[in-house]
């Protein structure tokens, strides 16, 4: 097998010591789970003790690479970061891009699993040579942003590519990110898990190469994909970035404003926050992840602004000043905060303050910079906001839960579910909570022939499942989703890519089974950690309050769609796979309760 190394690196931390061991993985694991989020979900299942506290030393943090990583194929310089989320208590699987991904795979492993904790804030160096792996205390780095740390370390010649946390991760803010060359593994709080292990940064050094089975075919496909990536299908990302969504979504009345109270900020405000408005407020440059021929990374005054950040730190908190939005986004980057959860939690707190449920000096439209700093440092009320919307609502009480906009504890992305009712289902059932990445069901609502204002119990489940499975494929290969418009037949092309890279023959049907298996393992993980059907729901606001244009979402319809989804997935009512699904996907071989794969004995 090429494209993979057939082994992972298990890292155990204790006191000031680090022990590492290479653990071989059978070829069948790669056939079953591909790589990226698929491989990571399997490893999380195997290494996380059932019911573990996500911030406890024994909770694993998984970096999972993919077979395409390191090849000349465009948009493949990515990796997955998985953990049990401290925000949701469910699976968290983020993706990030960067040169760190390329450098980390050269350790000669397909994943890194970090367990245990150090006793002081340290820099963890991982090396292809196990004897060179070490942890070095770095108390002077406390409070640095990942960017500052990376700059300083590069200047001092310490390391070049680093995966690091900012101040929010150190303080275990439940939606802290892990930052890699300016990109973030954002949702779900993986940064808090690294912070709980007292690891400020991970540097890597290695020269291993996994190679590819059919170099000529890979080269030819890389040229072809690069050419397709420069076509009309990706023009929006190149020319405008996802920030172009905001004005369009305002017009379609799906842009959440003021903690999901309304769906429009008006044309003038939308234009101020649109790419042209942002470019008037700060210098605009375009950039890209390593090895990407699309380049969707639009920076304003040096800060990357994409739609979700723009929505969460703009309309959601009723800010329509582009300079203020850019400053807040820059602060989240520096502090290591997930922008959607930060904006969502602030929006909820603002509504509570305006309703007089708390006496904080915080109102919609306010400058949130001081609040972001307080959250990241857990100062004053910021300490409560650092816990995220769900926990904050539990503390404030007084009925605030009904407008606490989260699913499973994860704050909602920028699509109004009352006006996108297929996506409403996608949000309810997504394994990591209200999520727009591991499922792209919003796309179904913007198709011809779909009435997005109607909960289509008969058709929505299949649309959501197809979207989740497509995402599982791309996120396991890993290819950037912004390439999807240039890939007409993702299953066929995915199978071809895997075959030419690994040399293992893959077919469309067998890849579809892998995608379904990945979904089944994620669901099984959540069931093991306490999932019940009751958590596949939206907050009351979305059912009890109609939008100004009359759009409303029936609670009974959502319940019916969720039930139909689980039935179509082959889940039993109390959660978990049916006998038939177990057989079809050979789940008993994978969802084993056997002891975790062995780790280093040297720490005792």
């Amino acid at each position: 097998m090429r494209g993979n190394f057939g082994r992972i690196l298990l890292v155990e931390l204790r006191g000031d010591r680090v022990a590492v061991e290479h653990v071989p993985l059978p070829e069948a694991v790669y056939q079953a789970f591909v790589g990226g989020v698929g491989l990571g979900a399997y490893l999380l299942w195997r290494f996380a003790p059932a019911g573990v506290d996500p911030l406890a030393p024994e909770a694993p943090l998984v970096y999972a690479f993919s077979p395409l990583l390191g090849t000349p194929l465009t948009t493949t310089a990515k990796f997955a970061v998985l953990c049990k989320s401290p925000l949701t208590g469910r699976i968290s699987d983020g993706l990030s891009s960067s040169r760190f991904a390329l450098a980390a795979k050269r350790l000669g492993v397909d994943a890194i699993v970090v367990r245990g904790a150090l006793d002081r804030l340290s820099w963890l160096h991982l090396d292809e040579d196990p004897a060179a792996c070490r942890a070095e205390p770095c108390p002077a780095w406390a409070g640095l942003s990942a960017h500052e740390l990376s700059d300083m370390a590069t200047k001092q010649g310490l390391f070049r590519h680093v995966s690091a946390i900012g101040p929010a991760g150190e303080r275990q803010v439940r939606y802290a990110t892990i930052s890699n060359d300016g990109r973030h593994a954002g949702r779900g709080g993986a940064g808090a898990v690294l912070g709980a292990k007292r690891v400020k940064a991970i540097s890597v050094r290695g020269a291993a190469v996994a190679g590819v089975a059919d170099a000529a075919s890979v080269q030819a496909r890389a040229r072809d994909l690069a050419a397709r990536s420069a076509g009309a299908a990706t023009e929006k990302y190149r020319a405008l970035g996802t920030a172009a969504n905001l004005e369009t979504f305002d017009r379609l009345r799906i842009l959440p404003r003021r903690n999901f109270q309304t769906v429009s900020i008006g044309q003038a405000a939308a234009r101020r926050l649109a790419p042209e408005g942002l470019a008037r407020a700060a210098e605009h440059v375009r950039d890209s992840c390593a090895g990407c021929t699309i380049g969707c990374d639009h920076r304003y005054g040096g800060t990357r602004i994409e739609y979700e950040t723009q929505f969460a730190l703009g309309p959601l908190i009723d800010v329509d000043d582009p300079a203020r939005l850019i400053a807040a986004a820059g602060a989240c980057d520096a502090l290591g905060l997930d922008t959607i959860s930060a904006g969502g939690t602030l929006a909820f707190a603002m509504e509570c303050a305006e309703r007089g449920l708390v006496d904080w000096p915080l109102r919609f439209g306010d400058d949130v910079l001081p609040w972001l700093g307080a959250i990241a440092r857990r100062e004053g009320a910021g300490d409560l906001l650092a816990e995220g919307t769900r926990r904050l609502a539990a503390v404030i009480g007084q009925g605030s839960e009904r407008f606490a906009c989260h699913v499973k504890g994860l704050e909602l992305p920028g699509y109004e579910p009352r006006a996108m009712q297929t996506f409403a289902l996608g949000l309810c059932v997504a394994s990591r909570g209200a999520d727009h990445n591991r499922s792209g069901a919003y796309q179904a609502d913007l198709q011809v022939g779909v009435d997005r204002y109607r909960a289509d119990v008969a058709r929505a489940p299949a649309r959501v499942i197809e979207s989740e499975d497509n995402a599982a494929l791309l996120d396991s290969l890993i290819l950037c989703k912004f390439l999807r418009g240039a890939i007409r037949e993702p299953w066929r092309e995915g199978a071809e890519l895997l075959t030419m890279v690994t040399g293992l023959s893959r077919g469309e049907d067998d890849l579809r089974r892998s995608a379904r298996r990945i979904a089944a393992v994620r669901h099984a993980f959540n069931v093991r950690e306490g999932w019940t059907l009751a958590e596949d729901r939206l907050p009351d606001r979305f059912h009890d309050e109609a939008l100004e244009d009359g759009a409303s979402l029936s609670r009974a319809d959502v319940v019916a769609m969720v039930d139909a989804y689980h039935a179509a997935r082959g889940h039993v009512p109390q959660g978990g796979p049916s006998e038939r699904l177990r057989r079809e996907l050979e789940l008993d071989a994978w969802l084993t309760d056997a002891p975790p794969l062995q780790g280093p004995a040297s720490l005792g």
Partner: protein
Amino acid sequence: MVTVELYGVPRLRAGASRVEVPAGTLASILHALASALPGLVPDIVHDGRLTEHALVAIDGREMIADPELPIADGSVLVLLSAAAGG
């Protein structure tokens, strides 16, 4: 007349954010649009049809594609990029 509002790449290609065209079928409107705003051809509008790279919503709500669909006088069509991801 029918008002066509342009967003995203269609606006960028057309160099306009709004245009009025005579009412008629969707196909006749797209033909008129292509004549008025040639930058939309061929990636957004081709042979009186929308390409896969664009969507059109009537009054900002329902996505439509049937070329024979009559569009009434006074309607507003919203022309947008098909890629919705964020």
